[in-house]
């Protein structure tokens, strides 16, 4: 797949993460299970091969292994992943709002 034997970064994993978690995750902090370093997922190292492996940029500990099978993704996660996503009433294409919309608009 790659002529470059070295790694990319977690940024390139953004599409898969968004598919899995339903939110932009490359800016999310991940804490390495092994050395305790906290970095955004985008700053991790991504190795693409038969599968996808995300490793800690400091100690190389595995943070994620993903394999794409014909009918599903198989994903193994380690370490601490912090998910942050806007609540559903926020327009996801807009930036963070200072306050929620009027109560009326939140009624179902």
């Amino acid at each position, binding site marked *: 797949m790659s002529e470059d034997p070295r790694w990319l970064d977690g940024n*390139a994993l*953004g599409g898969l993460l968004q*598919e899995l978690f339903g*939110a*932009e995750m490359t800016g999310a902090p991940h804490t390495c299970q092994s050395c305790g370093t906290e970095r955004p997922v985008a700053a991790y190292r991504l190795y693409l091969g038969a599968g996808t492996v995300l490793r800690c940029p400091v100690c190389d500990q595995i943070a994620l292994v993903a394999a794409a099978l014909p009918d599903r993704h198989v994903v193994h996660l380690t370490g601490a992943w912090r998910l942050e996503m806007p609540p559903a009433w926020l327009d996801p294409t807009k930036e963070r709002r200072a306050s929620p919309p009027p109560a009326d608009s939140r009624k179902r």
Partner: protein
Amino acid sequence: MAPARIAWRLAAVTDVLVETPRAKTLVLDVPGWPGHVAGQHVDVRLTAEDGYQAQRSYSIASAPEDATLALTVERLEDGEVSPYLTDELGPGDELELRGPIGGYFVWRSHDGGPLLLVAGGSGLVPLMAMVRHRATLSSTVDARLLLSARSSDDVLYRDELARLAAGDGLAVHQTFTREPPAGWSGFARRVDADMLGHVGPAPSQRPRIFICGPTAFVERAADLLVGLGHDTAAIHLERFGPTGG
């Protein structure tokens, strides 16, 4: 924030621009496109008649304010996807993509500056989205762009960069690592500490730094900047490289 749901969309190619002998810009109309932030990318998926799929990530070159979405694609020999995108696609063709993707390697004008953008070859693409975003909003944020290319033939957006560099607050520096143009008196070597020191801004100005290029280029530039005293947390990296083409 990026959209919570990510769907594959069909984009229509409206134009194809030749940027260099090896790179073209695909101008796309994407129905339902939710908008993007400068620095983000899209995933592009090709499906063969037998169902085989190949997927790659491409940086968005256009400013968020532009009416159409532009992807600049460098053709990689033996690549699985880029030769199709650069050689086969034409106006009226459709392309499957999803995005925008990424919330880390991004810059909005209100994030402020100063800004240091370091590009290796076609790593210029996402940085160009930032430069265009800055220009579209008439931002006067202090921005320095250092572009490393093998020869002037390899420089994307050459005329546009020259035009934008004449404007307010954007300094464009180039270095040619293989074949400088005739009469070139600027940098003609790999990026080094002296060059980065010359381009600035100084670490004391706490610039936001974005580096994009092949993996080895990005590693080297980041190490040099850390060596000059820049804050690691202010350095954003995107290893572009031949990600499988």
